[in-house]
């Protein structure tokens, strides 16, 4: 009995040791990425938040917790109006390119062409060149003496003294270039969701008498919703805080919320407090949006 009990104890001990090892494996594996996330994401954000409450300050002197910058932000309609303008611009860009990218991804994923990966490579080829170069190339295309206006002069649709000036240094230019830059990011998640679609469901729909349009509406579209939502977020979130493209092609009217943050940190007279408020507000909105949309990223819920 004692031996059996001892054997039982030994077995239980081994199990406990194994469990302990398993317990250590998970944090061991997760430790590095978590530490990375904490050091390079959470801590910097906490520092920015501290700036927004004047706990830290760029300038030496007496500082302490205050909500002054947050109150200023809430009561100054200029910042909120600019934020809303940026939201509108990002929404327009994201919606249009999702609509444009969907047929493209649909063709690549479901047409059965053997060249789909080559075509996919062609689609993402612009990513092999510099971001800056791709943006600057649009200046050559959209300027008053650029490719588009020169073509219009050549065709006689516009006179050389009357070019379309709204093409460059405008909101339109910003949205056009952002759309061009982010199109592959939109096409890829949609392509992946369509590529992983169970084709038997489409066959079943056809067998049950559904037309191609009905099969698309009732099967393909719901099942590709996670890809669409992911694609939308992939574009909407970064373009909302975008500042490089607006500063290059936006001119006076294409100025966005991200430019305001950069300017508050760097130009005029450094106002890191307000800049931090704007940055944290943007982060908060993005977080809320991501959480709100995340339920659509689950295929089953989306299909239901």
């Amino acid at each position, binding site marked *: 009995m004692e031996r059996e009990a001892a054997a039982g104890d030994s077995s239980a001990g081994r199990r406990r040791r194994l469990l302990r090892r398993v317990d250590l494996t998970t944090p061991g594996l997760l430790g590095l990425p978590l530490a990375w996330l904490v050091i390079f994401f959470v801590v910097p954000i906490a520092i920015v938040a501290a700036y927004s409450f004047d706990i830290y300050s760029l300038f030496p002197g007496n500082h302490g917790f205050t909500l002054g910058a947050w109150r200023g932000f809430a009561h100054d309609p200029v910042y909120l109006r600019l934020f809303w303008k940026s939201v509108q611009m990002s929404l327009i860009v994201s919606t249009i390119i999702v609509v444009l990218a969907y047929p493209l991804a649909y063709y690549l994923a479901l047409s059965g062409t053997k060249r789909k990966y080559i075509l996919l490579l062609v689609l993402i080829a612009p990513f092999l060149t510099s971001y800056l170069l791709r943006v600057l190339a649009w200046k050559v295309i959209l300027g008053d003496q650029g490719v588009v206006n020169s073509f219009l002069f050549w065709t006689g649709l516009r006179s050389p003294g009357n070019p379309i000036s709204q093409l460059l240094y405008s909101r339109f230019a910003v949205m056009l270039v952002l759309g061009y830059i982010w199109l592959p990011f939109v096409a890829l998640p949609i392509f992946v969701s369509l590529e992983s679609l169970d084709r038997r469901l489409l066959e079943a729909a056809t067998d049950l008498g559904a037309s191609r349009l009905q099969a698309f509406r009732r099967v393909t579209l719901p099942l590709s919703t996670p890809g669409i939502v992911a694609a939308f977020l992939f574009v909407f979130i970064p373009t909302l805080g975008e500042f490089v493209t607006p500063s290059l092609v936006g001119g006076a009217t294409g100025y966005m919320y991200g430019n305001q943050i950069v300017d508050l*940190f760097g130009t005029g*007279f*450094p106002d890191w407090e307000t800049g931090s408020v704007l940055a944290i507000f943007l982060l908060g909105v993005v977080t809320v949006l991501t959480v709100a949309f995340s339920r659509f990223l689950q295929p089953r819920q989306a299909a239901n």
Partner: protein
Amino acid sequence: MGEERDLLERRVTREDLFKLAAAAGGAGLLASRAGGAAAALERLTTESGRLQVLDWAGYGNDGGQPLFASYVKKYPRDKPQFTYMTNESDALAKIHAGLKPDLFRPYVGWVKYFATSGLVQPWDTSLISNFKHLNPFMVKAGQYNGKQYGIPEDWGFDAILYRSDKVTPKARSWGLLFDERYKGKIAWFDDLGMLVMTGLYLGFKDPWNQSDAELKQSQQLLISKKHLVRLIWASEADLWQAFGSGDLWIAYAWPNDWVQMKKKGLQVVYMHPKEKPIAWVGMMMLLNGTPRYHLAHAYVDAWSSTQSAKWLEDNYGYGHANTLARPASSDLLHALQLTNPKAVTEPNAHLDRDIPRRAVYAKLWEEVKAS
């Protein structure tokens, strides 16, 4: 070991020795001067490492090398290393965030701010051999409480550049930047100085220190006219590209922009508005606690030389505080009024000055951009 090798490898040029000998001259003070010279030599040879310069684009290793060539020739082991600033606020933010330059270049309107900030220290002008050639008026503008915090170097104007083949101004006025006839062809400068310019246009008594009501009026004018503006430029390269390609006809600009557009073959005029242009003078400032005190002086001395000054005038179209320098172009000589030692001040121009409520101006300007 490293320091010893540095000391052994450093060459003291014949010029240095002459300077030191000259410093050691003077019969009555021979002993003490010799001691001082020895101390100077000691410091020059112990200061080591690359000189850290915080300066504007175009003034570093990005095309501005001739401006400090004599320094590099003399101290090849301590070549300057550049960090670029886009404006004084950017420099201020960089320094507060931990950058440790030995010297940097704010403009004359910031002399008081930096002199009282505790970030900078006065120069020892006796260590700058070319100091005596610098424009006395500009030298005075670099002083605060009698101490020389800024060594004047480059100078120029903020005024209006326009295409004479496309634009017919109604008057020689800053108002051209608000002219409805040229909607979509106008560029403003991304700086709170736009409020100062607007104050000048509106005829305020002191545009650098406007009352709240005046500031509101200036801001409202800028907001109401912003729809005319195609570009608010922060970098000259952006302005040149847009102006050169015909996207712009009118711009708030600097003399260099006029030079560059002329080089492109454009018919351009650099207008002297009736409300007068705003003049600026670049002031080299020495950071407190710099470990390369003498090297920084040597660098500024190189910048202050006649050769550097002439190169700046010929290539960048800016004036230089060195009164001996003359540009090759008589057009430039005329435009900058280089023969007038007080070209940067009344009655010719308004010399830029301290803005006591700079943070308020900055906030209002940010609101104009965001509007």
